[in-house]
């Protein structure tokens, strides 16, 4: 899908909202007021619009960053699997030196750019699969809500362990399957937030979301 085509569909099917953990950021999302929210998946003009929702793990990281601006001051940030872009936007809002929003789905990068414009913020984007990369140019890595499946969580975690020796790794997650006790033992809890009601409705079974860093 090209940016122009995406933009018109994006404007049609999303609504700007501040009903989430980071009301400082205005984000265009597929909200409960949008017909698509309750439509069957096969009626969506987008293939798997993961960027259309503000995932609880992403909300936790963005909230944490906005509350602890010092932690990213002068840092170069990489937001992996950026989705709607909120993590990257939060870092940009507290004046990180460089922010790159990364997602293998081009639509997520378009959505991130459009959401950045909405907030007068500037972020770079990259669609390269960076998992396994040494990410030398970055000081901090954000991983919002990516511990869903076991195989992917394994791959991700090994990589993050390596990265954590040299840089800050922030993991946002509401307690998904891949965040096992074994992995939690290698992590340190930084913050826990109660999810807003609308977020609970999009994430049946979850009520809280958390931010972790890796123990070094």
């Amino acid at each position, binding site marked *: 899908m090209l940016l122009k085509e995406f933009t018109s569909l994006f404007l049609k099917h999303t609504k700007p909202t501040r009903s989430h953990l980071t009301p400082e950021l205005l984000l265009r999302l597929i909200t409960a007021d949008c017909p698509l929210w309750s*439509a069957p998946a096969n009626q969506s003009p987008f293939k798997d619009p993961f960027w259309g929702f503000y995932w609880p793990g992403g909300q936790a990281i963005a909230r944490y960053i906005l509350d602890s601006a010092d932690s990213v001051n002068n840092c170069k940030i990489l937001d992996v699997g950026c989705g709607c872009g909120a993590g990257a936007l939060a870092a940009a809002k507290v004046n990180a030196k460089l922010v790159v929003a990364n997602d293998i789905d081009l639509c997520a990068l378009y959505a991130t750019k459009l959401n950045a414009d909405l907030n007068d913020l500037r972020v770079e984007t990259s669609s390269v699969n960076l998992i396994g990369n040494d990410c030398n140019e970055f000081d901090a890595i954000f991983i919002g809500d990516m511990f869903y*499946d076991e195989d992917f969580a394994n791959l991700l975690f090994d990589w993050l362990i390596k990265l954590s020796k040299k840089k800050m790794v922030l993991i946002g997650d509401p307690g*998904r*399957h891949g965040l096992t006790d074994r992995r939690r033992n290698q992590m340190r809890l930084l913050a826990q937030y109660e999810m807003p009601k609308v977020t609970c409705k999009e*994430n049946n*079974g979850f*009520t809280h979301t958390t931010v972790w860093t890796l123990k070094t």
Partner: protein
Amino acid sequence: MARVLVGVKRVIDYAVKIRVKPDKSGVVTDGVKHSMNPFDEIAVEEAVRLKEKKIAKEVIAVSCGPAQAQETLRTALAMGADRAIHVEVSGPEYETMQPLHVAKILAKLSQDEKVDLVIVGKQAIDDDSNQTAQITAALLDWPQATFASKVEKTDAGLTVTREIDGGLEVIKTKIPAVISADLRLNEPRYATLPNIMKAKKKPMKKVAAKDLGVDLAPRIKIISVEDPPVRQAGAVVPDVDTLVSKLKEGGHI
């Protein structure tokens, strides 16, 4: 906190008009809309609410059947189950599968997965057996709370309100236990797009019934499946007098 196992069955959708196969061996399922057994939806909803109340730690959805059972499991995941187990049963074997087999599978998985609570619908709307919860409890030697219309956590275990003839019965049970969900237990939520999408990312494990050591040989043979008798057509009478005389003729008055 408890780990909950929920059994879900894919059945012909409640709104579909059922047709009997010409050879009377069963009902027509090909090309017919299927969905999750409504009582199982209630079971999933209750398990997810237990998780939201922090009484349950994890909700595992299980379904037995051919590949299409995975659609039903995805619905359970979208409703809020954490992970799913698809017990593969091939088409021909599935046709003769009975509550005893399902109960043996659920009992084995309950032990393997170290669950504290099994919740199933009180019956499936296709065969109306109403046996799975009871047999599962018996096989595990766990207490059973069937036809539940309310489930509350108490210190020692659970307080369950049961729908019985002429009223309600309140029982206390320890856990582990098996619960079967009745109609009034809750109102299940719809699976919306954000949840359906998240469900795609949740883990689903496949396992064969024979790997669980369950023999699927049928214990009951279906002799014949018949349509209900067709209603006799009525007749229109011109006036009240004719109606009265007809009723007298028939010996009704």
